[in-house]
């Protein structure tokens, strides 16, 4: 068994960093008449951290949710390694264990304590026995700084702690890519930094991550690649420092000046 907290998700023998692990090709998505994603393509290399920014309603979250098919794209293809997630008859339950997801509202199971929140899928999906699942869940919780809280119920935890349980739940499955859907947007300001620090640690451990966020400083410092979306399209992408310093499009320039307040 590999320890989620201490090992790179891509272990020895895999191709070197830089090979695209996640590829999104020309996805479109509409809700009724509303076109939310208009031909979005994107590729994420192994060990890369991609931050996605943009005004609300720009399709960032929908794009993220298409990756594990919580939303069904109307057209386009999505690949994780050699597996096509959007293939007809794709074994979604199998594919989803390789894609961790962290939600804005945490979505912890309120009837289970922190350890069992993490252990549920370990037991029912990976079929670990109770002791092994608990051990792995406790390690995952320790890796997000919650070793003391394994038996606490979600209602007894702060928002920041709850979100860290959410992260541990995703990591314990040893996913190949972790998706973050505005992980700090529902948190009180003083709790944001703790959660961001955990995500920063994961980058150090080599996790491949796509992070939809409103935290501009975080996007600038932590992301290897920055994506700016507006009106269902990727308007601009590149190195975060360059995009922040010299946005090429008017839309990114306007967006940055509105969120950064200058």
């Amino acid at each position, binding site marked *: 068994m590999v320890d989620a907290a201490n090992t790179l998700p891509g272990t020895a023998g895999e191709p070197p960093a830089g090979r695209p692990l996640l590829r999104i090709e020309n996805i479109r998505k509409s809700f009724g008449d509303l076109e939310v994603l208009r031909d979005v393509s994107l590729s994420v290399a192994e060990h890369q951290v991609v931050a996605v920014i943009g005004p609300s309603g720009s399709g960032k979250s929908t794009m993220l949710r298409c990756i594990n098919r*919580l939303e069904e794209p109307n057209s386009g293809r999505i690949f994780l390694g050699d597996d096509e997630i959007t293939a007809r008859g794709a074994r979604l339950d199998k594919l989803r264990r390789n894609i961790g*997801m962290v939600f804005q509202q945490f979505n912890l199971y309120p009837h289970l304590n922190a350890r069992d929140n993490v252990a549920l*899928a370990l037991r029912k999906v990976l079929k670990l026995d109770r002791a092994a699942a608990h051990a792995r869940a406790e390690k995952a919780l320790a890796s997000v700084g919650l070793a003391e809280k394994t038996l606490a119920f979600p209602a007894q935890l702060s928002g920041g702690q709850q979100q860290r349980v959410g992260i541990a739940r995703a990591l314990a499955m040893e996913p190949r890519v972790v998706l973050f859907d505005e992980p700090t947007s529902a948190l009180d300001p003083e709790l944001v930094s703790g959660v961001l620090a955990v995500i920063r640690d994961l980058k150090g451990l080599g996790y491949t991550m796509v992070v939809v966020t409103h935290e501009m400083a975080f996007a600038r410092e932590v992301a290897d690649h920055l994506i700016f979306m507006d009106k269902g399209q990727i308007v601009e992408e590149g190195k975060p420092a360059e995009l922040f310093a010299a946005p090429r499009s008017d839309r990114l320039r306007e967006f940055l000046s509105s969120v950064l307040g200058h």
Partner: protein
Amino acid sequence: MDNVYRYFFNVEVMRQSLPFVLNGLLVTIGIALLTIVIGLSLGLALAVIRAFQIRVLNVFIVAFCDVFRAIPALVILMLVYFALPSVGISFSPFVSTLLTLSLVLAAFSLEIFWAGITAVNPGQWEAARSTGLSFAQTLRYVVLAQAVRMVIPPLTNRTIAITKYTAIASVVSVPEILNQASMQQAQLANPTPLTLAAILYILMFLPMVVFSRYLERRHSRGR
């Protein structure tokens, strides 16, 4: 005052009729327990089937639910016991009552379980599915686990209400409390056995009523 005593609380009549009415109590408890087990299991099973959104089945489930909630239990019992034999299906009085009450409880509890399932936040489904749990696993370990807890207070109330209908079994002469009491009343020409029946119903159901209030209070504090 003397008359009240003589006709409602006649100790001698009580003494004579008590063994009969107590026998009735056992029958009532039997019907009640079996109704609760069968009715709630069936209701939960139908709610689970409904969650799978299979259109043809759902039409039947919703129709069953609406029809059995709309028809008075007494009418259903009369249909089962007096009408079904004319098409060649006949059940004993005991089974007819059990069938009627179980189906009525199933219909009501199905609706309550279903309300619980739909009240669970969609984010719970998404979180569970995102970790690779199947639809059925998510339903069982995440959604039902929460839904059942949520609906315990209304479910308890409804279960009590329907279990009380065991009294309609007297119409098809199942020897339960009410039936025994009214036979004794006729035999001894005194309504005291009915008082006895009422007392037994109170002893049987009052703890359940108190328990349901306790559940409700604990529940409202929890959120």
